[in-house]
């Protein structure tokens, strides 16, 4: 019994160390300026990134998401598990349909609400 207790406590101690070492940071980027798309992807694919990385597009930038010049960006997003989402409010304002948006991009009701919800969960946020 004592041995079991001892090992349980030992595991708890190891747990404290594990918690300290496994702390990661998650990021959400609100993006309306595609000029910085490659700069963002550079960060998302670097050693700096250690948690979730989500990019939410909003505003007129949505019209350019299917452009060929963003092909590498989309490929890297898939390879490095970068979550891509688009703002439904912006889509409606620009008259865009789901078919106008690249596949595998999540549609969220409102980009700002999405970012604020994630900030509440501890995500760091940046708007570009």
């Amino acid at each position, binding site marked *: 019994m004592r041995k079991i207790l001892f090992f349980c406590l030992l595991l708890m101690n190891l747990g*404290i160390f594990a918690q300290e070492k496994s702390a990661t940071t998650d990021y959400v980027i609100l993006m309306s300026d595609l000029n910085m798309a490659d700069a963002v992807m550079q*960060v998302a694919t670097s050693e700096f990134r250690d948690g979730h990385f989500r990019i939410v597009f909003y505003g007129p930038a949505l019209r350019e998401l299917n452009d060929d010049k963003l092909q590498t960006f989309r490929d890297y997003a898939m390879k490095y598990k970068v979550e891509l989402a688009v703002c439904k409010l912006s889509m409606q304002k620009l008259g865009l349909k789901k078919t106008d948006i690249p596949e595998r991009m999540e549609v969220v009701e409102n980009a700002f609400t999405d970012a604020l919800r994630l900030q509440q969960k501890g995500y*760091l946020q940046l708007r570009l």
Partner: protein
Amino acid sequence: MKTFISTLLFFLVCISGNAQVKMLSAQTVSVENEKTFNYVVLTKNLEQLPSIFMTAKTLAGKEKEFGQFDLVIYGDAVKDIKPTEIEEMIKNAGDHKVNLLICGYSLKAFKVDSSPFEDTVKIIDNAVLHDLQMQNKGFLSLTL
């Protein structure tokens, strides 16, 4: 003897666990006590510089805990930086407690020759990375 050793180990494990928890909470308290307010601002509009400088000076004057204020010029705004005005811009920034930085990625993306700035202003690799790194350190961030 076995019972004695296992009891001893049991207490040692308990004590070390407690000590770790106390060390963690002590670290948290000391960080809170030594708290300073640091800021990182990203702008792609040079017309906003005067108001950003004023903001930094006001914060520096009012806050005892004022630490660092990084201002990063990024995006297409790097095209508008005039080499003849950069020294005055840096002097202005310094007078207002602002650490002026320029995004190297944007300089490359917009094909701006960085040689006139290299000796006078710090060029960072990537404004996005800088902002997130600073946020990770506890800086308050604002993008304009």
